């Protein structure tokens, strides 16, 4: 029973079902593990010890009494702290919501619970998911488990680092412009950004509604698939989820012969060590009888501007509700005139959030709407069309997940543009609403490199097949020394 925490979600589930160990024993190990390593990685904001143990005992009781148990029975799942959990603080790593206890569960959380998963705790992130390094958190930065001088990526830094550090086998993150894939790549784990409209966003505290999706992070492709089966599908609480699309059972096959396109602009734009790794991934697929070729994308150069214009515009409006009237933190309004109170309260946003609210407000103002927001939407449409025609020729596109290797703390924090630039490879999937996955592809100087695969709308199955094929033919370390 040693090192249960290092096992994959599928293995844990089998172990508990098969009576090898109990869910309670497992959860105790997980909690011990968190106590031990979290001071080093700062991935977990808070644990729900009581709730987790209660649920574990319930799962054990169900197994003992031969009752029906859910497909995720006993699996510890960490939840990014911008996804609402009933009666459990959900802070967005912001002072603005430091005391916020949601009165409801996000749909994804409810589905995890219904399937007998165990919510272990809430995970660190950039404030309101705005950032690419988890340095902008009111709880302090998350540390890369592979090298503690380096950032874990963001904004779902806690979700990726907690899995890499074996604090939980799987977690949920959210991906607005790469927020799942960036940290998953930096931490050498698997992360999926599903098709827009595939997973309910009800309960996801929004940064940019038209771009983001909740998605799973795990050490293996099949763990990610396992969580996806539970969380995906129509929800009567989110009208942007496509009701006509039914979640397939994702029967994995690693023998697929696929047509693969390598996106030249993205691959060549990356650091040499990274592009080398992507080209060798292409060679690997070629050797497996896949039809691989390089492709060129015209609209890549406009993607980043388009993305930040739309994301910040939506953010500026989404964040206006935080006025501390209906929820928030304890700060008596006595003696304040309304506008003064409002200004006082909103000064609690962090600098990065303030910057994005200001820029977003600017691009939406009536004088500049046509110049920025409308143009950004046009680019978005053209990018979508370009991808659609590419997916007529290719099953998947491959590219680096990140153009650079993980960087050191403080290296980019003072230069917002530099920080924005590293999202170049990931924002495309968000703008087009298509699914994308990152899988560990190797290391350079002991720092992880991720391979990104992108497919057409609702073609997650193709991503899983390709990712599984790649995973089965490579052997990349998933367990850093801590």
């Amino acid at each position, binding site marked *: 029973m040693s090192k249960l925490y290092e096992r994959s979600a599928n293995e844990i589930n089998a172990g508990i079902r098969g009576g090898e160990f109990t869910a309670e024993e497992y959860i105790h190990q997980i909690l011990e593990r968190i106590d031990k390593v979290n001071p080093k990685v700062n991935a977990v904001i808070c644990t729900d010890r009581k709730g987790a143990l209660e649920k574990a005992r319930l799962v054990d009781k169900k197994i003992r009494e031969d009752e029906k148990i859910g497909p995720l029975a006993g699996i510890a799942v960490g939840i990014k702290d911008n996804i*609402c959990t009933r009666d459990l603080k959900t802070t967005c790593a912001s002072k603005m*919501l430091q005391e916020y206890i949601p009165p*409801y569960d996000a749909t994804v959380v409810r589905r995890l619970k219904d399937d007998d998963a165990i919510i272990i705790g809430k995970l660190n992130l950039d404030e309101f998911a705005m950032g690419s390094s988890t340095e902008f958190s009111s709880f302090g930065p998350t540390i890369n488990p592979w090298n503690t001088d380096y950032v874990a990526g963001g904004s779902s830094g806690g979700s990726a680092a907690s899995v890499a550090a074996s604090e939980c086998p799987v977690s949920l993150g959210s991906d607005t412009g790469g927020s799942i894939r960036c940290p998953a790549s930096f931490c050498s784990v698997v992360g999926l950004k599903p098709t827009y409209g595939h997973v309910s*966003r009800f*309960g996801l505290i929004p940064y940019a509604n038209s771009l983001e999706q909740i998605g799973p992070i795990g050490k293996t492709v099949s763990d990610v698939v396992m969580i996806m089966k539970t969380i995906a599908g129509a929800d009567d609480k989110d*009208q942007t989820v496509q009701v006509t699309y039914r979640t397939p059972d994702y029967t994995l096959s690693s023998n697929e012969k696929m047509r693969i396109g390598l996106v030249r602009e993205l691959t060549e734009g990356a650091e040499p060590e990274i592009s080398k790794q992507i080209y060798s991934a292409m060679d690997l697929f070629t050797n497996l009888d896949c039809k691989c070729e390089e492709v060129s994308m015209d609209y890549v150069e406009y993607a980043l501007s388009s993305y930040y214009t739309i994301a910040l515009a939506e953010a500026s409006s989404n964040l206006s509700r935080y006025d501390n009237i209906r929820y928030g933190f304890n700060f008596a309004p006595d003696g304040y005139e309304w506008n003064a109170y409002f200004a006082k309260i909103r000064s609690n946003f962090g600098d990065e959030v303030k910057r994005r609210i200001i820029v977003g407000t600017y691009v939406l103002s009536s004088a500049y709407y046509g110049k920025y*927001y409308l143009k950004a939407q046009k680019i978005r449409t053209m990018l979508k069309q370009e991808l659609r025609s590419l997916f007529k020729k290719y099953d998947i596109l491959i590219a680096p997940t990140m153009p650079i290797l993980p960087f050191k703390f403080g290296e980019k924090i003072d230069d917002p543009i530099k920080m924005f630039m590293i999202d170049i490879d990931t924002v495309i999937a968000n703008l087009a609403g298509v699914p994308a996955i990152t899988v560990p592809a190797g290391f350079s100087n002991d720092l992880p490199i991720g391979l990104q695969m992108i497919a057409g709308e609702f073609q997650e199955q193709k991503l899983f097949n390709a990712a599984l094929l790649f995973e089965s033919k490579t052997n990349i370390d998933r367990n850093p020394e801590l």
Partner: protein
Amino acid sequence: MKVLMNQENKEYRSVKIGLEIHCQLTCLQSKLFCSCFCNYHGLEPNRNICPICCGHPGTLPLLNKAAVEVACMVSLALDCKVPDNITFYRKNYFYQDLPKNFQLTQYNAYGITSIGVDGRLDYGEKASRIRRVQLEEDPGRLVYESGGVDFSSSYTLIDYNRAGISLVEIVTEPDFTDPKDVRIFLNKITSIIEHLGVCNTKRQGSVRCDANISIQGGKRVEIKNVGSFKEVEKALNYEIARQKTMSMHDIKVLAETRDWDDARKVTKQSRAKEEEQDYRYFPEPDLPTIALDEEYVSSIRMKMPELPYERKNRFTANYELSEHIAQVLIDNKELADFFESAVKIYSSSKEIANWMVTEILRYTEEDIMEPKINSSSISTQSSSSFAGLKIEAKHVAELAELIDKNIINRNTAKIILTQIIKTGEMPSQVLARTDVLKIEDKVIISDAVESVFKTENSAVRDAKNNPNVANFLLGKVMKITKGRADPKITLNLIKIKLDGLN
């Protein structure tokens, strides 16, 4: 010549009034974007709320499809075009009563329109163009320390029970020149929404009207906070007088928002900050675009109840009513409904319509003249035109029948009506109890004449010389029969008797 025409033109265009009418869709079960109740009246503050309408982080709006249907109906009734697709927009501004600090509404721009555009409504000989009909959410309600709208309160309470209620906003072009026309137009609108059954206009705060007005091409003044449709005409008349006086004294009229002070009957500068607002409209990403294809629109058309103008045509055709009478009935849906119920019981449509328009209407209007509720307090009841009147359709039907059968005359019927309104008794009951039945029986009348001849000996003797005696005697007979004797028969009998004496 040219100059003259311009002057005429100027005179004709001197007053320009446009209206923004907000109408709560009280017919719905739930709010526009969540499942909280649509009817919050009578509930304690903040008891009709949920995470969605309180704007909790992570919640998403869920569009009430029935609201779209109703808004579509209103658009069609106002002869608007309904677009193939509709979208909701965020109107961003900070205000305490706005849970998300943006309002979900509709917007006409960038090739997308609200649910209704380019409509038209005729009223009398005139017409106003309808610029747009849009569906949006109501904000919450602010309650000030002093009870009224008072910015000097040291605290403000917020009640979100109303937050998220479906509103239809009807915006007209500035096509009105006369406040009287505005009143007629608003009556028309009221009748339409009542006929559609989408809004209980009698419920406090369910319909509100803002007006904008400019004079002689001057700056546009918005009048807000007008308590009821009836006050709009008064507010506009006041504002015209104010602006005319100002321009007479060469004082420039400012572009501003003014509140109507219901108690003092004046408009006064709104205390709300007067700055150019940029609402930063953009499409709501959490709601998909809704396709309203031809099939959908025609299915709504099929479902639409009879509209006032259609009903009027039916009234003139089927009931043989005059245009005027039909119009008066239709303008108040309750009156028209009452009429039709009565006609079902007794088919004398013209008689019943006459009674409705000449008598019943008077009573309902008298009732309205005495407002029972303070406009600043929230009423839990809806006030019907017939509130406090005990009259029902069956009463008027029977009244008409009694008249038709010559059992009573119209004067008697009026007396009976005053009783019915108070007690709710059937006319025949009133008749039996108060003995107002007309006496036509010659034997009974002869007896009465006989007794009068006995008591009025001197008058009877004078009859030969004085032709007025017959009328005097008639008066006496009417007196002892309490006015019930048929005057023609009575006079005839008196004359025969006098002739007999000679």
